[in-house]
């Protein structure tokens, strides 16, 4: 296990006085992986990142980097480098002095260092910016300087603390793509801290979703999206509809449930999340797993009748809030708009198609 782990957390706890910031973090991050720590503010994701960098001591447990216990190893001796949320560009130094800062203690010749700086700047698309003053750069450029400065030391792990949160939307999307490209190019393990679930889904090989100092689920983006292991994770990642359900019987691989609006259906055991409390379960499903069946369209696995309560038109998509017959609260359906197909009106009746395989049962 240790062999396959670039980072390994072993029951990591962190207290600030009485406050229990990290509550027994265990898990591994693989070499060459783009890994994200995702969670709301105050969930401990930044604290966890800083324990890898060496800026936070842990109260108990162990953090291993490339198989080596980091206890007692100061930040300046760790094989990790960090890109800070504020970028932390040294304002009194030029771009090339910033990028070359980590090479100060390197024994290489001046020319070799200058070449390394040039290569690092070229890698982040800032070729020719070396002589500029750091404080005269734009947000996106600072970001790139910070990346070049951290990557020039060829760390085993690059730590990114909400690096895109200060950029505007367009710039952010551009940098997401560039970060993915950069990570593939250098092959270094990237660990990203973010509170933006979309960003985490787009960029990561695997994601650890954190709540209140604990990892709620650690999985690849598709699993997180399709099979969230709790209502909380389901709520945090994208939109999920919930309807009450009851477990009728379970045996072997199949579970029979009675879900409001859907009736009695069979689902597979792997669609069931949580322990075995019989009563009071909930089914969850994503808005795009439901379809409004227009006249003449082929039936899906199952269908129910519903009333359209709200229509939100987004151009390429339309969101319908519909109430399925026999249920109390409306659920959201997202439909891709197709040329020639009318957007339905509020109050209209519609057939809603769904599929048992897309459901998740939480209990």
């Amino acid at each position, binding site marked *: 296990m240790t062999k396959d782990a670039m980072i390994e957390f072993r029951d990591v706890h962190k207290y600030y006085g009485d406050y229990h910031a990290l509550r027994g973090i265990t898990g591994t991050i693989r070499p060459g992986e783009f890994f994200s720590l995702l969670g709301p503010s105050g969930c401990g994701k930044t604290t966890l990142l800083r324990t890898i960098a060496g800026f936070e001591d842990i109260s108990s447990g162990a953090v291993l980097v490339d198989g080596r216990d980091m206890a007692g190893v100061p930040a300046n001796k760790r094989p990790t480098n*960090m890109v800070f949320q*504020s970028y932390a560009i040294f304002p*009194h130094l030029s771009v090339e002095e910033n990028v070359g800062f980590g090479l100060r203690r390197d024994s290489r010749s001046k020319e070799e260092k200058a070449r390394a700086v040039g290569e690092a700047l070229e890698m982040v698309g800032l070729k020719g910016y070396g002589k500029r003053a750091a404080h005269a750069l734009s947000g996106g450029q600072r970001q790139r300087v910070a990346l070049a400065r951290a990557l020039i030391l060829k760390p085993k792990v690059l730590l990114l603390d909400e690096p895109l949160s200060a950029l505007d939307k367009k710039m952010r999307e551009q940098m997401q793509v560039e970060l993915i490209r950069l990570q593939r190019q250098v092959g270094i393990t990237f660990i990203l801290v973010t509170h933006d679930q979309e960003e985490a889904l787009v960029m990561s090989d695997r994601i650890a979703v954190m709540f209140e100092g604990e990892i709620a689920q650690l999985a690849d983006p598709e699993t997180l999206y399709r099979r969230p292991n709790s209502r909380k994770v389901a709520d945090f990642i994208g939109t999920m509809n919930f309807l009450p359900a009851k477990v009728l019987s379970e045996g072997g691989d199949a579970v029979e449930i009675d879900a409001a609006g859907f009736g009695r259906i069979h689902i597979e055991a792997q669609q069931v999340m949580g322990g075995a409390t019989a009563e009071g379960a909930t089914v969850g499903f994503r808005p795009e797993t439901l379809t409004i069946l227009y006249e003449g369209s082929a039936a899906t696995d199952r269908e129910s009748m519903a009333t359209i309560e709200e229509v939100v038109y987004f151009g390429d998509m339309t969101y319908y809030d519909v109430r399925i017959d026999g249920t109390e609260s409306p659920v959201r359906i997202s439909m891709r708009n197709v040329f020639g197909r009318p957007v339905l009106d509020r109050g209209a009746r519609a057939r809603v198609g769904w599929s048992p395989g897309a459901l998740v049962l939480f209990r």
Partner: protein
Amino acid sequence: MKSPVFRSYAIIYLIFLYAPIVLLPIFAFNDSKVIAFPLQGFTTAWFVEMWEDETLWNAVQNSLIISVSVAVISTLLGLFAARSTTRFQFPAKAGIMGLIMLPMVLPEMILAMALLVVLLAIGINLSLVTIILGHVLVCTPFAVAILSSAFQSLDKSLEEAAYDLGETPISTFWLIVLPLVMPGIISSLLICFTISLDEFIISYFLGGTDTVLSVYIYGQFRFPAKVPAIMALGTILVLLSITLLATAEYFRRRGIAKAGGKDSGGFL
């Protein structure tokens, strides 16, 4: 605010504030021993008289020794205080900082009297050293105020970044922190120097037989014949003070701009 009442109030206020200072150079170049209008003609004789006064030079020398020492000591102390108050949490921090800043608003007379009583009681002879002690007490709060603002506009992650890139805490301080707060340090040195140079009460109380500039000037006013030369000296001091304070403010602002912060009102 366009009311003529407010406007004339502002003008009268400014005249009252600055007219006496403007009179200094006027009478410094006036060819008469009497400080009164009408003016009698142009002369530089008072500057020559001032220049040849040996007790004045002695006082200037004493003042420079004191002011330079005070500037250096206060700025060093201010550096420690500002660093600890902006980076670390410790018990009773607000209370301790309050006590350090208190001499800024405490009447200097009280400070001077108390110090005099204590120094006499423990049998320390009054000298330049005792003046330096008193001045450090008064100047340190100013140094703390200036340097705190310099340290506050310093992003903590700059230090972490340097540390992360392989530097030790000491080399980080040397390479990152010091260059970025240097304008604040220069500004603090200049302000403390100026305050110490101008200071009278403590210098008078704790000076013993050593005379400093401010006390010397006060003493000269007993002799009407000496007053024009004092006017000449005053003219030079005004120019010197303005230059020093302007330089200090320039460095403070540059420091904030350099650290990428916004000017939050400032000290001057």
